[in-house]
């Protein structure tokens, strides 16, 4: 009976969450049409972008437990690859976007080799260092990237003959990207691969002993996570139409990691909630001007105090010692 009751409860809550998701989906689809200002649409676009970035990092840091503070590097690599290909070679967006993702993924896998042996803080610091090195290369390789002057005039994407120009169109594009990333990451987390990744996070040695091919799964997590970051970067470049190295700093990496930790490691819905929260808060407080970032910092500290397991994280996965 206990088991049955539990099942019914589970199915009820899953039905409720399905309905909730449906409503959420409809609201998201309707956003550009309900007469809100273009500012609000842009805020939604920005939030969806960070949701996508957060979800992509969640695969690596949340599920596989490889905490990275260099995600902005891959996001930047995607942005620059896509922007340069379309500016210099005039390639279409679909191609440059994909190239951005692949480029980010290749460099991610390259980093994966040395980073593989490292654990915990050492891994985190190598990713941080990698992020800084990538930023400096972008800054100093002036012949290719125009350095601190940035790349202006990145063309609007044309997808299947449709030019993406209005705020609404950009919004739908990132919505599609976010949904795809969510679907992929959520499928992975419910699959054997996802369980292997969680096993690696909880105890790499035990996972290895149980026959999990740690190297292979870390490569999968690394490759996919950076690929998605590159795609979002490409989108960002074409959306904002001007990029420079200051878009891809350590602050960006730490913000993305905050989304994952605040949402609860490995919890996708948590990441979404955290992104809404952390992107909206500074905007809502825009009136406070100088105090905005001060309060933002405090909120981050308080959030860690009040919900140590993250907004939607589960209690049982907490460390005991």
């Amino acid at each position: 009976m206990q088991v049955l009751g539990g099942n019914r409860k589970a199915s009820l809550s899953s039905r409720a969450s399905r309905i909730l998701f449906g409503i959420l989906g409809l609201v998201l689809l309707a956003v550009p049409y309900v007469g809100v200002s273009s500012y609000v649409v842009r805020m939604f676009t920005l939030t969806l972008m960070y949701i996508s970035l957060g979800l992509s990092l969640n695969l690596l840091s949340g599920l596989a437990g490889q905490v990275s503070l260099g995600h902005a590097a891959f996001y930047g690599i995607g942005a620059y690859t896509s922007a340069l290909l379309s500016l210099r070679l005039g390639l279409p967006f679909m191609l440059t976007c994909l190239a951005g993702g692949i480029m980010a993924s290749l460099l991610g896998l390259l980093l994966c080799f040395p980073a593989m042996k490292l654990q915990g803080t050492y891994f985190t610091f190598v990713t941080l260092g990698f992020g800084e090195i990538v930023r400096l290369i972008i800054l100093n390789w002036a012949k290719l990237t125009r350095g601190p002057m940035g790349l202006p005039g990145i063309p609007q994407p044309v997808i299947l003959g449709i030019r993406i120009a209005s705020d609404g169109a950009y919004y739908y594009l990132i919505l599609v990207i976010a949904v795809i990333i969510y679907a992929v990451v959520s499928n992975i987390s419910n699959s054997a691969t996802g369980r292997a990744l969680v096993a690696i996070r909880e105890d790499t040695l035990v996972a290895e002993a149980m026959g999990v091919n740690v190297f292979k799964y870390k490569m999968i997590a690394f490759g996919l996570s950076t690929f998605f970051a590159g795609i979002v970067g490409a989108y960002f470049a074409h959306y904002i139409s001007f990029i420079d190295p200051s878009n891809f700093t350590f602050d960006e990496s730490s913000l993305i990691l905050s989304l994952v930790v605040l949402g609860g490691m490995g919890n996708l819905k948590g990441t979404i909630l955290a992104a809404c929260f952390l992107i909206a808060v500074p905007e809502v407080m825009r009136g406070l001007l100088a105090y905005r970032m001060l309060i933002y910092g405090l909120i981050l500290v308080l959030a860690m105090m009040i919900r140590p397991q993250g907004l939607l994280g589960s209690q049982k996965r907490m460390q005991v010692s």
Partner: protein
Amino acid sequence: MQQIVNGLTIGTMYSLCAVGYSMVFGILEFVNFAHGSIYTVGAFITLTLVSSGRIGFGVSFLLSMIATGLLGVAIDRFAYYPIRSKRAPKMNLLIGSIGMSIFLQNLAMLIWGSQTRNYPEVLRLGSTRLLGVTISHYQVVIFLLTAFLIVALQTFIKKTKTGKAMRATAQNVDATKLMGVNVNLIVQIVFFIGSALACVAGTLVGMYYQAADPWMGFMPGLKAFTAAVLGGIGVFEGAMVGGLIIGIVETLAAAYIHAGYRDGIAFAVLIIVLLVRPTGLWGKALSRKV
């Protein structure tokens, strides 16, 4: 040669910061990202006290060290301790300290403004040419002061009872607790010492470049931590040597390779060293439980 002397000067500053990072990590096993901001705040407190003109430089410096040390203790008490006491994953402390760092940086900006402030030239010292190398007397002051602080700290850790308790806590927190040591007090002492050292580094660097701004601590903070990791985190000597290595390599690279990559060199060195020795130069090999 000249570059090596300059590199050593910067290196000692990294070392001072790295020791603070390393001590905190040794006990709490987390990276205190706010350390760089503490360095900034320390530099500004000294600046304010010195330019108020009422008290001499020496007294200002000492007061500033104490104030910054207390700031470190306060941060631990009000931000990190509540997170720690919930036995949350280590990641939370990391994010919390990033939040703290953002908070402190913006606080510094609100109090002291966002422009670069001139650091008063309190010590007007000349320079000496030795074997074709120009060494400013200020650099000598930096070396001597750092050496004194390091030796003092070493003695404190090795010889006193509190130092013994600190070493014990770094080895095993729970066992130390059972031996009747007030671990929280030890952590606070560590934060006090680390922050005071950061203040020294901030002030000395501020005077060396004669400038201070709210973001001055960011890069040195990252590099000092890199130095600590390079040397093997949690190891006192490792942090010292790591700082010096980073300082020298970075200055040489900026002079002979490309000045634009100056800030990246530290990280490149880190990645290469970790490839060969995954726990840093002096780090103990991580024991894997079976």
